[in-house]
């Protein structure tokens, strides 16, 4: 009788043969020299060992010149970051990308601003047993910030860190969280091939990384390090995460720059943002300024909101533009909600334009509602709806239009 060990090995080999099995295919280096745990490999300068299996490094460099935008935006900014000196721009690297309780965070990077300096701190876990101390130090970084800023951290990094704290019986540290992925999507989804931080950083900020590794290769690289304890394997990983957090600062400044620039309608040299980016962002930028969904509980910045309305109105005027209808719908909804005479006039102008130039059913209904309920111009409303009913494309709107016609006709007759 074979021993259990031999049978298990045989089973594993059989699984690797079997095409139907889901056994993971692993790279060939898995039997590389394994160093016994506790056998510490020194990490080069500026790394310092701060606890068993926990390392820290700190890098100081001049802050990016766009920083002024973040300072001037502060509490009035579109992102809700507040005072940039109180913000912690962070990113993590993990042992897997699918999440779940078995995925650990092994590298934490935090960029903070101190006057004209950008300080990047890295905390690294060189083996799993050091996780409590590692988390303790990560928690300290978050704890000292007023706001944390990430890219896709709301869905990935933050829940993962929370889980790690809980699994180590530690209390998770929570701070208001600004996730730049969402505003970046609004601004760049239509102009860029993708919205990964790498793409945005390359195409928008013009950053070229010299030492880097694709994010999806990071876990495997870390596992190689764990087996071989060769710190040089991690050079690209450390560089990668530093680029990530530095770009976060740049990206936040860029977004605030685009917004403030569009508000003041003049080039802001410190932001380094071209008028062209504003036009490219178009609809997304307009909505971002108008709706201001990321400012937390702060009241709307009315200057930025006004800029958003202007932007969407001008987009709505470009009848040929593919986004003009959406822009018109968004901005008219907002104008109708405020309901000042001036705002309503702007909305009416857009509706009329869409009715006459695009035979828009949406605009017909909106305008008819306005004429019926606000100005009680029943005859005009009647005529408007009657014309729309003669259009061949009125399709699913027909029932609603016919009911409306009956109602305004009777109101007109009664008068």
């Amino acid at each position: 009788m074979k021993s259990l060990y031999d049978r298990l090995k045989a089973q594993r080999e059989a699984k690797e043969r079997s095409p139907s099995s889901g056994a993971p295919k692993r790279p060939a280096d898995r039997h590389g020299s394994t160093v016994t745990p506790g056998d510490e490999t020194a990490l080069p300068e500026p790394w310092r060992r701060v606890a068993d299996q926990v390392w820290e490094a700190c890098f100081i460099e001049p802050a990016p010149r766009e920083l002024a935008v973040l300072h001037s935006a502060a509490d009035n900014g579109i992102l809700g970051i507040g005072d940039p000196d109180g913000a912690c721009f962070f990113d993590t690297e993990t042992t897997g990308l699918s999440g779940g309780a078995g995925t650990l965070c092994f590298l934490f990077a935090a960029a903070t601003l101190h006057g004209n300096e950008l300080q990047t701190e890295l905390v690294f876990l060189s083996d799993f047993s050091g996780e409590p101390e590692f988390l303790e130090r990560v928690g300290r970084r978050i704890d000292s910030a007023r706001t944390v800023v990430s890219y896709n951290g709301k869905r990935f990094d933050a829940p993962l860190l929370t889980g790690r704290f809980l699994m180590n019986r530690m209390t998770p540290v929570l701070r208001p969280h600004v996730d730049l992925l969402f505003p970046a999507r609004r601004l760049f989804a239509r102009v860029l091939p993708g919205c990964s931080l790498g793409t945005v950083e390359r195409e928008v900020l013009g950053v070229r990384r010299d030492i880097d590794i694709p994010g999806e290769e990071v876990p495997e690289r870390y596992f190689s390090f764990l087996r071989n304890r060769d710190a040089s394997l991690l050079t690209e990983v450390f560089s990668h995460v530093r680029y990530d957090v530095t770009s976060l600062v740049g990206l936040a400044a860029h977004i605030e720059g685009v917004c403030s620039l569009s508000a003041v309608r003049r080039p802001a040299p410190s932001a380094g943002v071209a008028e062209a980016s504003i036009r490219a962002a178009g609809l997304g930028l307009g909505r971002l300024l108008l709706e201001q969904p990321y400012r937390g509980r702060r009241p709307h910045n009315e200057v930025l909101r006004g800029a958003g309305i202007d932007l969407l109105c001008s987009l709505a005027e470009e009848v040929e533009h593919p986004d003009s209808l959406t822009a018109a719908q968004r901005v008219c909804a907002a104008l109708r909600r405020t309901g000042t005479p001036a705002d309503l006039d702007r909305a009416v102008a857009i509706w009329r334009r869409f009715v006459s130039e695009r035979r828009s059913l949406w605009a017909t209904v909106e305008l008819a509602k306005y004429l019926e309920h606000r100005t009680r111009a029943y005859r005009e409303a009647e005529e408007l709806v009657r014309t729309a009913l003669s259009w061949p494309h009125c399709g699913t709107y027909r029932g609603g239009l016919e009911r409306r016609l009956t109602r305004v006709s009777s109101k007109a007759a009664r008068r």
Partner: protein
Amino acid sequence: MSAIDRIIEQFREDRAFMECVTRWETIPARSGSYRDIPSDLDPRLRTALQGRGIERIYSHQAEAYAAARAGRDLVVVTPTASGKTLCYNLAVLQTIIEQPETRALYLFPTKALSQDQQAELGDTVLATDIGARVATYDGDTPDSLRAAARETGQVIITNPDMLHSGILPNHPKWIKFLKHLRFVVIDELHTYRGVFGSHVTNVIRRLKRICRFYGADPVFICCSATIGNPGDLARAVLEGPVQLIDTNGAPAGERHVVLYNPPLVDRVQGIRRGVVNEAQTIALRLLRAGVKTIVFSRSRVRTELIAGYMNKTLANLYTDNERIRVESYRGGYLPSERRAVERGLRDGAIHGVVSTNALELGIDIGGLDAAVLAGFPGSIASSWQQLGRAGRRQTVSISVLLASASPLDQYMVKNPDYFFGRAPESAFLDADNMYILADHLKCAIFELPFETGERYSVTSGGPVEEHLAVLEEEGTIRRSGDRWYWADRGYPAEGISLRSATSDNVVIIDTTGGIDAVIGEMDRPSAKEMLFDNAIYIHRGDQYVVTKLDLENRRAFVERRDINYFTDALVKRDIKVLLEDERVEHLGCEVVTGDILVRTQVAKFKKIRFHTHENIGYGEISIPEEEMHTKAVALVFRPGSAAGDALADLPPALLAPAIARIGTVMRNVAPFFLLCDARDIGIAERIRDPHFGAPALYVYDAYPGGSGLAESLTAVLDRVLDAARQLVRECPCEEGCPSCVGPRDRSVEIDGNPKAAVLSFLEAWRAG
């Protein structure tokens, strides 16, 4: 005199009917055993019970309540109509009232059952204004509702698969729920046997491990249908002491159980009327007498046929189909269609239903007065579950078991003492099965680092050091400090299925009239047998012809058409040896372990005329064979070996039956030693195996990739063979019966007694 009494009397006086009856057993009515509503029960709950007409509860419900409230794990045996849900809902809801932070997890084996359960529990909750929050959490729960279910659900209804792949691997998200988990309800415990049960037991181990981490220690409340060993099974799943509550306090009306052999239509050849026609005739007599009836059939096609024939007989515009509504019910219908049938049965709009074993499980369809079993369901336990679908608390019921022409069915009706005397089958599982344990250990380490010296399971679980060593070498786990950590980017639960069946279903699309409408679905292997091009597919009585089976995109296109025949695929199964791991001389034969490919091919189909069931032609099918790569052990009987010579000594005519019957005995005996279910292993016999060039018997794992059962047969072969020999020798039957070598099949085994042949083979082999 009530309708049911009248029809029973009519049957009794019907000579033609009674000539077919081989046994009419009357089980006397039983009065209920009641207890007062527990004194500590909250007035709101008490009022809710009274609102449902419950002034006192059954003894088993009271016992279950007391045990659960005292913190004791329990299993309660719950036949139909015994008020199962109160056995757990009382304790759970009372605890929720006392401590609103209480959480409970309800596990049901299938998704359909969990939805039914939520409706039922919803009633209670609504009625009592307790405001207990109940949420279903399974693969169909939309993302938008998941977070709320986790955060606020007091009772979470799910299935073991979701617990395994969705909840446990993400336990930090469930911290609030798991910290306060006080009850785990495992319904339909009897389904957790064999390989599936071994998987589920490991999922329970993982759940307990995570609960320990969060400081929770929930009470487990299990419900089981009647099986041979409910207490043992519960102890095997929970791995600790379990209180068995098997005295049912619910009253039951008088029950008539009739074994019925359809009349001979050809006395010379011994051909009897088919079960399809006979079942519909008997069911119609019951329905026309005003008796609510369920017909159980053994296949999806027969379910459709019986329901179709019944509806055709009833069809009459002037009488509004005699005001009798009959529906069919099986897997593969749209969930909304199944819900509608269940509801119709409960509220009385539907009078008769024809079903596969899908309705054997605890789906609530209200009370029925009669059950007709179109064929023996394959096990005693299943038979009683199906027969038990007829029967209410107060009134008389009747159930009729109809025998098909198969030797097994014929044996049952011709030996009523055997049928009525035999205890329901026992259920076994082996949670330490090497394959299964290894899989779940990975999941466990993913979920929480494993402490050195930690016992994976509190009470058993054995040493796992060797497993850990292999996993470390493989690089999926890593030792750091005094713990083992998951060290792989993968998500292990994703690649581990608790069930052998594939989940990739073929969607059936009706293209009649140019409108594409999804009418149902079917698992892929069955689709190959039932939805091939030109197959006739029957769905809720409507006939469709399959215009195209698109396996790649998992779609089958069908069109309505009225045709006078249906189709039946001829399935061929063969085995190909892929790789031999080991070949040893053992116990007088050659024992070979290795990998095999089990190939199932449908190359032809028969066209069978409706009603007469005559064969009116054949058609070709060209679809790729279904393949399963698995592990097997082959016993090769070479000349010169003890077994080979013993086999060669048999009369040539008995050679083939003897080998086939060794397979049957194996199937009867091996589950006791392998701790599995008979359906977990496949058996194939070859008089002259092309790979080995000698007679051979294959025992293989019925799970893709293998489940370790075949492999461990070698270690217990000695005991299996001794048990087989003893079983055959001591079995009181003359020529074989279902307990030993299987009943004699006189259509094939014309000369000679197969039982004697098997016995002499076994004796000579073991003596040699």
